[in-house]
C-alpha cells in the first residue's frame, strides 16, 4: 500500500501509533458497527444532537481500524472500506503522525486530546430560550476514572426490559432521551439470513440497547489469546529483563556498615545435610536419572532375567526320607498313537459303552482313534484341562508311599503237600449202623478197635461189630432221658463202657465176641473194686443235709443181668464223660449243674469229687491232658487249664469263639482244637499263645464235635450241623520252632440234616485212619 521509500520511517511510526490508539478507537469502532447495522431514522437524531465532530472523529477511527484489518486479513473488510478514499486517509494519518512525533512512547495520548478541545460542553438554547449546557460525552479512555460509561447507557435501572415491551423505546440515556427499540422482525431477519454471519457475531442481545451483541476485533483477539493460554494483553511482556538494582553495580557506599557475619564464611550445615541426604539416596539407588517408563521396565526385566549357574557349588545331599517325589505321568502306550495298530481301536459296542459311562467312571479317559494321515489329527480338546488337573494333583493331592508287591501271586500261597502225600484219610462211607430211633447222640470205638458203642435219644446204648455193622448188644438205660454220651474206658486191660442218661452215669461191661471170659472178669472186678472201698467206710463224710456229689450204687438186677454194673447219680444231667488215660478217673460235665457241673469220679474208690467251688461261665466240656496232671475245662468263652496236683489255674486259653461246643487235645499235649457253635474250628498251640494259631471256617453251620486221631496218624476231624464231616491233615512237627501244618483234605457228606441238626458226634479208630460219626438221622457211619 505504502510504496514510497521515503515514508518508510513514518510508516513504522504509523504502525506504532495505530497500536497505541487502539483504545481510543475501540469505542468508535463499536459505534461504527452499530451505525452500519441500523437503518432506523429515529436513532440518527440522537447522534446528530450529540456531536458532529465526534462523529467524524469516530468515523475516521473506524476507517483507520478497518484499514488495518484489511492489511492483515480478509477481503470482506476490504469491500467495506472500498468506498473510503485512500488519499483522505493518508492525510489524516500524516496529521496523526505529526502529533505523535511529539509524544513520548508509553504515555497515553489522551491528555493532548483534551488539550485540543478545552471545552467539553456546548451551550445550547433550551425550550425557554435560556442557556443550556450540553456536555460532551465522557470518553472513558484507559486512564479515565469513569470505567462504567460505555456508549449510550440505558438508565432505566435494574428492572426487567419486558416492562417496556409495549413502548417503542426501551429506556433513556444519560441525557433523558428515549432510546428507541432497534428494528427487529422479519425484514431484518431475512436480511441477516441472506448475508453471512458477521465477524464477532454472538447471537446475543445487548440488554441495554436491545441490539444484537457482537464482539469487536479486539475482543475476538482477546478471546483467542485466552484460548491459546497467552497473556491476554498483547503488549505485556511477562518476562522482562531483570532490572539489577544491587548485584552487578558496585556501590560506592554500602547500604549497611555492619561487618559480615561469620556464617557468611562457614559452609551451611543444613545444606550439607540436605546434600548428604540426596547423595545417600543416589548411592542407594533411590534416586535414578529419569528414563521413560517403558525403557525402565525393559531394563528391569533384563535385570531379572539374569541367569547364572545356580548349581555351581552343588553338593549332593541325602534326600529327605519323608519326601515323596511326585510320580511321573505314565508314558503313552500303543493305543495313544495317532495311527495305532487296528486291534487297539474300539469296537462299536465298546465305543457305545464308553460313551454311556460317566466321565468319572471311565477306565480310560480317551478312546483310541486312527487317522490315516498326520494332517488330519486335530488339537486335543482337553489338553489344557489335563495339564491343569496334573497341576492340581501336584500341589493338592496327598502323597502316600504305597508298597506295590511286584511278585507272583502264587508265591504267596503256602507250599501244600499234594493230596497223595496226605493219605491215608477216610474218603468213603464203609458201614452204616442203623437201629437207633431218633438221633444217635454219641459214638465211641473201643480201645481194641473192634466194637462200636452208640447212645441215642431213644435211651438205649448199643454195641456193634465195627466192620460188619452187626448189632451185638443193646440195653435201654432210661425210658425218658436220652443217652447223651457213651465212652469206653481207654485201657485194654478191661472192657468197660461208660454211658450217661439223665443224672445217672452207668458203667457196664457189654458182652462181645472179642471179650474173653478172663477179660470179662477183669472188667467186672475193676467195676466192683470200689464197692469194697465204700463199705470200708472210707467215703468222705459229707455234711449232713447236703446232697453228696455222687451216689454210687448198683443199678438193679435187670440192668445188672444185661451187664450194666454200676450207676453213679450226680446232681444234674450229665452231658459229657471224659476218661483219664489210665482209666481210673473219669470226669463228667452237667452244664446245668451250676457249681457242681464238673465232677471227677474215681472208679477204684467209687468216689466223686467236685473240684471247683465256682466256675466262670457254664462248663461245656472237659478233657484230661494226655501226659501231665492237667485238666482242661471249656466254658462258653474260654478254656481253663488247671493243675490237678497243685490245685491251681495254669492258664486261660481264649479261642475267641462265642460258644464253645467241643474240645480235644493232641496226643502230644501241646495242641488243642476247639469247635464252636459259631462255625469256627480253632487250633491252639498252647506253647505259643493263648490266642488261636489257626482259625478255620469251612462250615456253614455250627460245629458239634472235634476229635484228634489218637493212634499216631496226623489227622483230626470235626462234625457239623450242615451234615458233613471235615477231615484235616494236622501234622505237629517234632521241632518246637516249626509251626504245625494244617491241610484240609476231605469233606465227608452222607448224613442227613434233621431239625437243623446234622452230625452230632465223631470218633476215630485207635489205629486205622477210619472214623465213625453219629448223625441226627438215626444212623452211625463208618468212614474209611
Amino acid at each position, binding site marked *: 500500500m505504502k510504496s514510497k521509500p521515503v515514508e518508510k520511517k513514518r510508516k513504522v511510526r504509523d504502525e506504532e501509533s495505530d497500536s497505541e490508539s487502539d483504545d481510543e478507537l475501540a469505542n468508535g469502532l463499536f459505534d461504527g458497527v452499530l451505525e452500519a447495522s441500523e437503518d432506523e431514522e429515529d436513532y440518527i437524531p440522537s447522534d446528530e444532537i450529540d456531536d458532529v465532530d465526534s462523529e467524524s472523529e469516530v468515523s475516521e477511527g473506524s476507517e483507520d481500524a478497518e484499514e488495518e484489518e484489511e492489511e492483515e486479513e480478509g477481503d470482506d473488510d476490504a469491500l467495506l472500506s472500498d468506498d473510503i478514499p485512500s488519499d483522505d486517509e493518508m492525510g489524516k494519518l500524516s496529521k496523526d503522525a505529526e502529533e505523535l512525533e511529539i509524544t513520548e512512547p508509553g504515555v497515553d495520548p489522551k491528555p493532548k486530546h483534551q488539550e485540543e478541545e478545552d471545552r467539553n460542553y456546548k451551550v445550547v438554547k433550551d425550550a425557554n430560550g435560556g442557556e443550556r449546557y450540553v456536555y460532551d460525552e465522557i470518553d472513558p479512555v484507559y486512564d479515565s476514572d469513569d470505567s462504567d460509561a460505555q456508549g449510550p447507557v440505558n438508565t432505566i435501572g435494574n428492572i426487567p426490559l419486558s416492562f417496556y415491551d409495549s413502548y417503542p423505546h426501551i429506556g433513556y440515556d444519560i441525557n433523558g432521551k428515549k432510546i428507541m427499540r432497534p428494528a427487529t422482525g422479519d425484514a431484518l431477519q431475512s436480511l441477516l439470513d441472506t448475508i453471512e454471519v458477521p465477524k464477532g457475531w454472538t447471537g446475543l442481545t445487548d440488554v441495554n440497547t436491545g441490539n444484537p451483541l457482537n464482539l469487536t476485533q479486539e475482543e475476538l483477539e482477546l478471546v483467542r489469546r485466552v484460548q491459546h493460554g497467552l497473556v491476554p494483553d498483547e503488549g505485556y511482556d511477562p518476562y522482562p529483563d531483570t532490572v539489577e538494582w544491587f548485584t552487578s553495580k558496585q556501590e560506592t557506599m554500602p547500604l549497611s556498615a555492619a561487618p559480615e557475619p561469620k556464617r557468611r564464611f562457614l559452609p551451611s550445615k543444613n545444606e550439607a545435610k540436605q546434600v548428604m541426604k540426596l547423595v545417600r539416596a543416589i548411592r542407594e539407588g533411590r534416586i535414578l536419572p529419569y528414563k521413560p*517408563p517403558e525403557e525402565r521396565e525393559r531394563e528391569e*526385566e533384563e535385570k531379572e532375567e539374569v*541367569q*547364572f*549357574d*545356580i*548349581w555351581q557349588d*552343588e*553338593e*549332593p*545331599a541325602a534326600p529327605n526320607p*519323608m519326601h515323596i*517325589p511326585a510320580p511321573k*505321568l505314565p*508314558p*503313552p*502306550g*500303543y493305543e*495313544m*498313537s*495317532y*495311527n*495305532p*495298530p*487296528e*486291534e*487297539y481301536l474300539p469296537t462299536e459296542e465298546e465305543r457305545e459303552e464308553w460313551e454311556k459311562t460317566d466321565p468319572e467312571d471311565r477306565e480310560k479317559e*480317551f478312546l*483310541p*482313534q486312527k*487317522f490315516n*494321515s*498326520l*494332517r488330519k*489329527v*486335530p*488339537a*486335543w*480338546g482337553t*489338553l*489344557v484341562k489335563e*495339564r*491343569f488337573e*496334573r*497341576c492340581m494333583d*501336584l*500341589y*493338592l*493331592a*496327598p502323597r*502316600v508311599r504305597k508298597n506295590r*508287591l511286584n511278585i507272583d*501271586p502264587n508265591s*504267596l*500261597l*503256602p507250599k*501244600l503237600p499234594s493230596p497223595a502225600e496226605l493219605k491215608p484219610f477216610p474218603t468213603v462211607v464203609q458201614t452204616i449202623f442203623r437201629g437207633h430211633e431218633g438221633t444217635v447222640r454219641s459214638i465211641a470205638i473201643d480201645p481194641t478197635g473192634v466194637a462200636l458203642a452208640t447212645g441215642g435219644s431213644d435211651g438205649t446204648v448199643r454195641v456193634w461189630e465195627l466192620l460188619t455193622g452187626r448189632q451185638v448188644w443193646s440195653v435201654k438205660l432210661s425210658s425218658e432221658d436220652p443217652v447223651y454220651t457213651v465212652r469206653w474206658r481207654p485201657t485194654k486191660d478191661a472192657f468197660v463202657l461208660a454211658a450217661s442218661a439223665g443224672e445217672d452215669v452207668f458203667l457196664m461191661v457189654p458182652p462181645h465176641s472179642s471179650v474173653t471170659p478172663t477179660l470179662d472178669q477183669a472188667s467186672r472186678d475193676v467195676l466192683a473194686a470200689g464197692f469194697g472201698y465204700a463199705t470200708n467206710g472210707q467215703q468222705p463224710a459229707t455234711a449232713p443235709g447236703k446232697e453228696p456229689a455222687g451216689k454210687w450204687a448198683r443199678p438193679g438186677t435187670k440192668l445188672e443181668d444185661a451187664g450194666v454194673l454200676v450207676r453213679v447219680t450226680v446232681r444234674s444231667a450229665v452231658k459229657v464223660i471224659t476218661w483219664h488215660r489210665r482209666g481210673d478217673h473219669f470226669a463228667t460235665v452237667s452244664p446245668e449243674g451250676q457249681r457242681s457241673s464238673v465232677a471227677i469220679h474215681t472208679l477204684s474208690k467209687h468216689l466223686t469229687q467236685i473240684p471247683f467251688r465256682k466256675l466262670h461261665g457254664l462248663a461245656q466240656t472237659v478233657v484230661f491232658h494226655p501226659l501231665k496232671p492237667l485238666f482242661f475245662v471249656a466254658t462258653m468263652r474260654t478254656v481253663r487249664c488247671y493243675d490237678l496236683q497243685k490245685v491251681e489255674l495254669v492258664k486261660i486259653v481264649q479261642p475267641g469263639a462265642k460258644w464253645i461246643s467241643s474240645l480235644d487235645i493232641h496226643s502230644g499235649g501241646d495242641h488243642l482244637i476247639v469247635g464252636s457253635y459259631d462255625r469256627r474250628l480253632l487250633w491252639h498251640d498252647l506253647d505259643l499263645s493263648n490266642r488261636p494259631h489257626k482259625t478255620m471256617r*469251612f462250615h456253614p453251620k455250627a460245629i458239634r464235635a472235634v476229635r484228634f486221631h489218637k493212634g499216631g496218624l496226623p489227622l483230626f476231624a470235626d462234625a457239623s450241623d450242615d451234615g458233613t464231616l471235615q477231615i484235616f491233615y494236622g501234622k505237629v512237627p517234632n521241632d518246637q520252632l516249626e509251626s504245625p501244618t*494244617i491241610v*484240609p483234605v476231605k469233606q465227608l457228606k452222607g448224613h442227613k440234616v434233621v431239625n437243623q441238626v446234622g452230625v452230632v458226634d465223631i470218633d476215630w479208630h485207635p489205629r486205622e485212619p477210619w472214623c465213625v460219626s453219629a448223625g441226627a438221622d438215626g444212623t452211625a457211619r463208618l468212614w474209611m
Partner: protein
Amino acid sequence: MAKIKKKGQSGQAKNYITRTQAVKKLQISLPDFRKLCIWKGIYPREPRSRKKVSKSATASTTFYYTKDIQYLQHEPLLQKFREQKVLEKKISRALGRGDVSDAARLERNAGRPDQTGKPRYTLHHVIRERYPTFIDAIRDLDDCLSMLFLFANLPSTTSVPAKMIARCERLCHEFQHYLITSHSLRKSFLSIKGIYYQANIQGEDVLWLVPYKFNQRVVGDIDFRIMGTFVEFYMTLLGFVNYRLYSSIGLKYPPKFDQTKDDKGAELAALTLEGVNLATNEETTKAITNGEGHGPDPKVQAEVDKLVKKLRTESAADKADEEMADGEEEEEEKATDAIDKFEPAAPGGDVLPQPTYSGNNPSKLFANCTLFLSRETPRQSLEFILRAFGCKRIGWDPILGEGSFTTDESDPSITHQIVDRPIVQAATTEQGDGEDNQTAQKLGPNQRYPGRIYVQPQWVWDCINDEELKSPELYAPGASLPPHLSPFVKPTQGQYDPTVPLEEQETEGEALDAAIEDAKDEVESDEENSEADNDMDVADDNDNDEEEDSDAEEDEEVEDEEDEDEDEEEVLQRQRELEAEISGKAVKSKQVDPKLKAKLEKKKALERKKKEEAEDLERAKGMLSKKKRKLFEQMQYTNKKKSTEDMKLRSKRRKLEKEKAAGKA
C-alpha cells in the same frame, strides 16, 4: 502314677496340621499359601490314622506335616507376600480417597505380576533348595517342559499375559537348541494328544508332551492363577537349567535373539548360538541353521548325489540283503570298540541290560539328507527332530516361516521331500493354471521332481525311533501307513505286543480254540460243497466209516470213564445215527475229521487240567490268612484284568488277520 496323656497333645496329632491351621499360623491368605506350597514343593500328607490326627469330624480335611509348615515360616518369600499385601492396601486406600495419581504411582512401583507377567521377587533360592544338584532338577523336568510347551502355544488372555507366553516360547526354543546341538533327543511319538519327546540329558530320561500347533481350547473351569504360579516357577527353573546346559557344551547363554526374524516366524532360527572362548575372548558364532549363503556346495552336491544313488540301489537290493544278512554278518564282523552283545548260552541266567547306543550313531541319521517340507507338514516338530538327528539342510515352503535352507522346491540338492497330501485325481491338462499363488509351488498336483524321495511325515518319526532310515516305500504319499507304535512301551513277559506275530504270544487254549474254529469252518464249507453233489452211494460209504469211528470211540470210552460230556455226546451221536438209519438218510452232522477230534480232545484235557488247578488253588487259598488272602485276590484280580485285555486284543487281531487273509484270497 504316670501323668495322664491328653488327646491331641503328642504323637500323630502333633505331627500333622490342617490347612486352615497352617494358613493361620503363617498369617497369610489362602492364595498366598497356595503359591508358597507350589513353589516350595509342599504337598499334603495322608496320615496313617485320620481319626487320631483330626480333631474335627470332617472327612475331607487336608493335612500337612507340621515340620513342613514350620519350614515355610522362615521363607523369605513370606515377607514379600506381606509387602505386597501392604502395598495393595495402600493402593486401595488411595483409591478410596480418590487420589488416582497416587494409586497409579504406587502401582507403577509395585510391578504387579499380573500386569507385567513378572514378579519383583525371584525364585532363585527356592530352586536351589528344591534341587540341590543339577541332576535333581533334570529329574523333575518332565512336568516343567510339558507345561512350558503348552503355555508357549496358548493364546494370550488377561490371565495369561503375552509376555509370559513369549518367555515360555523363548525358553523352549533355547532348550530345543541345546538338544539339537548335543544330539540328546532320543525318541518321539505322535499321539492323539500331541507329540511326545524323550531326551536323555546327562543320563536322565526326560519325557514331555508338545501339543499340536492349533489354538488350544480352554474348556471347563481352569484356574489360570494356579497354572500361572506353576509356570512362573518352571520358567525360572528352565532358565537356570538352560544356562547350565549351554555352559556345559561351551555355549553362551542367553543366545542372541533376533526379533525381526522371530516376527517373521523363524522360531528356532531366531536364536543364534555363540560359543564362549574365554582364553581369547573371541566369540565364535556357530551357524546353526542350514548353511544359508554358501549355496549348493559342489562337494556336498557330489556327496548327495552319491547318497541318492546309494539309497536307490539300497532300496532295490534291500530284500536280497535281508536274506543274505544272517550269513554275511558273521563274516563281516571285525574287531570294534563297540560293546559286544552277550547272548545267554543256557536258560535260567539273569538278563543284564546293555547300553544300546553302540553301533550306528543316531545323531548322524539324517546328516547326509537334504529335506524339503511341504506346506501341510508340521514344520516346527519336523525341524526340531531332523536337526537333532543331524540334518543340516532343511528347506520348506515360504508360507511356513523364515529360516529355511531353501524355499525353492525345485532345488536340485533336495534328497527327501516330506509331503502329507493325498494323491489328487486331477486331469493333467488342468494343472498349472489353477495353482494358488501363495506358495512357491509350481508343480502340478501329482507331479514329482525326479531324483528325490517323497515320504509322509511318519517316516521321520519311525526312523528316529528305530534309529535307522526306514524304507520309504511304506511311507509313500497316499499309501496307507504302517501303524505308528509308541517307543516308550517296554515289552514285558506275557503282555500283548503288536510287533510280535500272533502265534508266538497266544496261550495254548486260545491257539486250540482258534484252530478248532478254523477246522470247523473248513468242515462246514466242505460239507456244503459235498452236500451239493452227494448221492446215496457216497452216503453209504460214510455210514461204514462212521461205524468204524464209533468202534474206536467205544474203546476210548473205556479209557476215560470220567469224561461224562463226551459220553453224552456219544449217546447223542448214536441216537442220531439210529434215526438216520430208520429214515434211510446219510448222517451229515458230526462228520468229525480226526484232526479236529484230536484237537477237541486236547482242549478237553486242557480244561480238565485247568479245573484241577483251580481246585488246588482253592484249597491253598483256604490256608492263607485273611490279610494275605485279600492281597492274593487283589493281585489275581489285576492280573486277570490285564490278561483279559490282552486276550481281547489278540482275538481282535486274529479276526483282522483272518479278514485280511480272506480279502486276499
